[in-house]
């Protein structure tokens, strides 16, 4: 059995929760990235702490890769179940590297490596995962030094013994990998590029949290909920280096109300949650609408209704956020498709929220926040943290109509200036005091809705990617950016383009022109009803009747999209 893997390899590590797959994932991605490869890692895992079957896919490539593929070139299973768990993704082209003494798999293309035995010989079965890392790195022929450096960095705090055990484990594995490579049994032929060493390696979570930092976020209030928790944890870590109030609220209702209290006082607060936690925040969103408070809301989507599948991915919260909160008031919803977008849109979210005094959403999902890949270094010189609050004078009125520009009155904060700042969840007059004057009511409604005009002027138009003379247009939003892009790049004989929306509300109504130019339009979403297509229809009247929908909790794979797009193109609908 001889295998050559050219330009790209997809490695899948699988095992039970608690077997250290996450460690392998970060070791491999970091070391391979640092050695000049493009890497992309995505995990799927169960809602439990130990046991079950989880897996991580790591794509290593000579060109940027950012999407999930079904294909598994190399599989390293740490438990017997995990092979069954992966099902049809394991084909006869998949090389399996396993300790078959322990796993007792009956498979042809299996390379039996005594991962566990080596670990046990080193005195601790826990080292098995590190042996596996060594094998892979041996296959790549990475310098041993890189590995050692990284192990020292990672395990340094845990003491010398652990570090040395890990280094030994890795090098034992390394020898095996190198041997396989040297004997020509597995040849990985992917060009490395020195320049990539300087790339950052970020997750979707990192991108959102760093964007928040760059947006001047100085407070985060949240109640843990997968997959929204990551941003809370990241901010907690950043709080060691930057001024951030990090507080775990007693519930989601507290979280959003705390965020509003913070903005009222001049803070720049965010909340992070998931669908179900957000459902509890809706009254608070409505309060933001009424008192015209900025607030930034990160929502990592997962399959619903109710608790649903806590650790899986979906795009099911679009309806919810667009219509969240009772009453009528403006809002902005961003749905980044790339990590760069996640960073810049989250950064922008704070400025937009502050400028227009509205809630701004960052809508991601489990697949997006839990993926890692190379990102180019950031240049923040064009970025500004726009603080829009003003120093008040004695005559200050929070909702001054005469001073309102496109519905936006200057926002004062307490004890900065001579004025008093009064906000009220009841309908209120220009001062902010409760009123039941029905004429003022109408003026205030009009004022709040007028902000839509200004917000519409700053809509981020969808991005057209692919063949400019397209016949087929794929419409998508949020995290499906890369997978759709890669799929249509692979369908070479058709004229296809992708129209990706990273702002989903308000919608760019001008985008209808792109649809008009297409022979056929296909909507791709991770939900069962086509929420974006429906929103598009509500906003523009244009239907997109051809839909590719997935709602089993997994992201689309490149291969399945290629097949489904081809079917749609060839089929009638």
């Amino acid at each position, binding site marked *: 059995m001889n295998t050559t893997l050219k330009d790209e390899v997809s490695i899948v590590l699988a095992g039970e929760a608690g077997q250290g797959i996450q460690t392998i994932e970060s070791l491999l991605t970091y070391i391979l990235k*640092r050695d000049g490869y493009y890497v992309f890692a995505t995990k799927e895992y169960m809602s439990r702490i130990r046991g079950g079957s989880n897996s991580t896919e790591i794509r290593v490539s000579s060109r940027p890769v950012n999407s999930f593929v079904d294909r598994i070139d190399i599989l390293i299973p740490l438990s017997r179940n995990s092979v069954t768990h992966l099902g049809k993704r394991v084909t006869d082209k998949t090389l399996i590297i396993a300790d078959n003494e322990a796993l007792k798999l009956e498979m042809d293309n299996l390379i039996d490596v005594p991962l566990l035995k080596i670990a046990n010989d080193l005195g601790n079965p826990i080292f098995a995962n590190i042996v596996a890392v060594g094998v892979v790195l041996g296959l790549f022929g990475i310098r041993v030094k890189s590995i050692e450096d990284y192990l020292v960095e990672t395990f340094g705090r845990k003491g010398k013994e652990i570090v040395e055990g890990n280094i030994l484990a890795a090098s034992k594995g390394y020898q095996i990998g190198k041997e396989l490579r040297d004997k020509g049994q597995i040849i990985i032929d992917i060009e490395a590029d020195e320049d990539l*060493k*300087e*790339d*950052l*390696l970020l997750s979707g979570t*990192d991108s959102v949290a*760093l964007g928040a*930092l*760059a947006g001047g976020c*100085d*407070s985060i209030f949240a109640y843990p909920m997968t997959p929204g928790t990551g941003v809370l944890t990241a901010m907690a870590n950043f*709080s060691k*280096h*930057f*001024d*951030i*109030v990090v*507080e775990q609220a*007693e*519930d989601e*209702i*507290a*979280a959003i*109300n*705390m*965020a*509003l*209290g*913070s903005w*009222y*006082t*001049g*803070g720049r*607060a965010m909340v992070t949650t998931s669908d179900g936690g957000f459902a509890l925040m809706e*009254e*608070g969103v409505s*309060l933001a609408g009424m*008192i015209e408070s900025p607030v930034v809301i990160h929502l990592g989507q997962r399959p619903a209704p109710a608790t649903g599948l806590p650790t899986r991915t979906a795009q099911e919260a679009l309806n919810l956020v667009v219509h969240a909160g009772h009453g009528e008031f403006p809002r902005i919803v961003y749905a980044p498709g790339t990590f760069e977008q996640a960073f810049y849109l989250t950064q922008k979210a704070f400025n937009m929220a502050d400028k227009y005094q509205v809630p701004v959403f960052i809508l991601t999902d489990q697949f997006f926040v839990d993926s890692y890949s190379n990102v180019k*270094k*950031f*240049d*923040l010189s064009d*970025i500004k*943290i726009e603080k829009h*609050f003003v120093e008040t004078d004695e005559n200050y009125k929070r909702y001054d109509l005469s001073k309102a520009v496109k519905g936006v009155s200057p926002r004062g*904060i*307490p*004890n*900065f200036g*001579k004025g*008093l*700042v*009064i*906000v*009220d*969840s009841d309908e209120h007059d220009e001062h*902010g*005091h*409760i009123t039941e004057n029905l004429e003022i009511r109408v003026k205030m409604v009009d004022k709040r809705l007028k902000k839509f005009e200004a917000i519409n002027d700053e809509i981020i138009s969808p991005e057209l990617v692919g063949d400019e003379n397209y016949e087929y247009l794929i419409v998508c939003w949020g995290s499906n950016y890369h997978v759709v892009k890669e799929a249509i790049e692979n369908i070479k004989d058709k004229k296809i383009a992708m129209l990706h929306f990273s702002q989903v509300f308000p919608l760019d109504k001008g985008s209808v022109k792109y649809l008009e130019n297409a022979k056929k339009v296909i909507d791709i979403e991770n939900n069962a009803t086509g929420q974006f297509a429906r929103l598009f229809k509500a906003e523009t009247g244009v239907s997109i009747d051809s839909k590719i929908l997935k709602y089993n909790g997994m992201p689309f794979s490149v291969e399945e999209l290629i097949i489904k797009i081809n079917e749609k193109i060839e089929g009638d609908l």
Partner: protein
Amino acid sequence: MSDRQNLFTFENEKELDIAWCPGCGNFGILNILKKALEELEEITPNNLVVVSGIGQAAKIPHYFKNNTFNGLHGRALPVAVAIKMANPELFVIAESGDGDMYGEGGNHFIHNIRRNVDITNIVHDNRVYGLTKGQASPTTQKGMVTPVQVNGVISDPFNPIAVAIANGATFVARAFVGDVKGTKEIIKRAIRHKGYALVDIFQPCVTFNRINTYAWFNQHTYKLGDDYDPTDKIKALEIAFQEDKLALGIIYEEDGIPTFEEQLNVYKENKEPLYKRQRDLKELEMFINAMK
């Protein structure tokens, strides 16, 4: 001090359309609170924020000079503590009704006691839902008939004093608006207390609560004497459990407990409120670009 007289009173006070019923205990609380604030030299309308929820009591911040956050029903506390976290220089009062604080807002009540943020929590306890027209509140007495509890309330009343003490509150007081001087002193002490301070004020609702009237409160309350030692937690609980006669005064007080904001990393070295701080984007750029 004289320049502080009416410091918190609107110039156009006469024109204010106060939405309370004539004779309502809320008027008394408003007057007492204004007086207490006048007597606290460190406070001005500008460095004071009053946060309320929804209800008759919750309208109070609209009736005197302060920075007001009149938020959602039940949600005054999260807003108030976040304000203090963003700017510890402000004096923050969270003030609302019994339904608001102990009913809809009950979860914030128990968990913010644990936080011990340096705010004052004033509850207008009329033992009824006033604004929504007379349903039982958590503190309504057993047996009271209302439009919803047509056979009388069957749940036991919530005992905010006992729960707050048991839950670790560092300042727990009960007042009666009929006792003007006592209430004013309690409010002042509560505001000056370092940490979370609860002041539950008996407030007759002349429209919907025909049981707990001014006379009833007069008859069923007594003042804790000067010899009372509010630092004994068990004694305080005994007082809190009394049923025939209800004690007025500072029932429990514990000093020297660190406040929440003192323990926050951001304020350990730098006391400036958040709004005055700037993020250093150059530093951030370096930080990000090190994430390789």
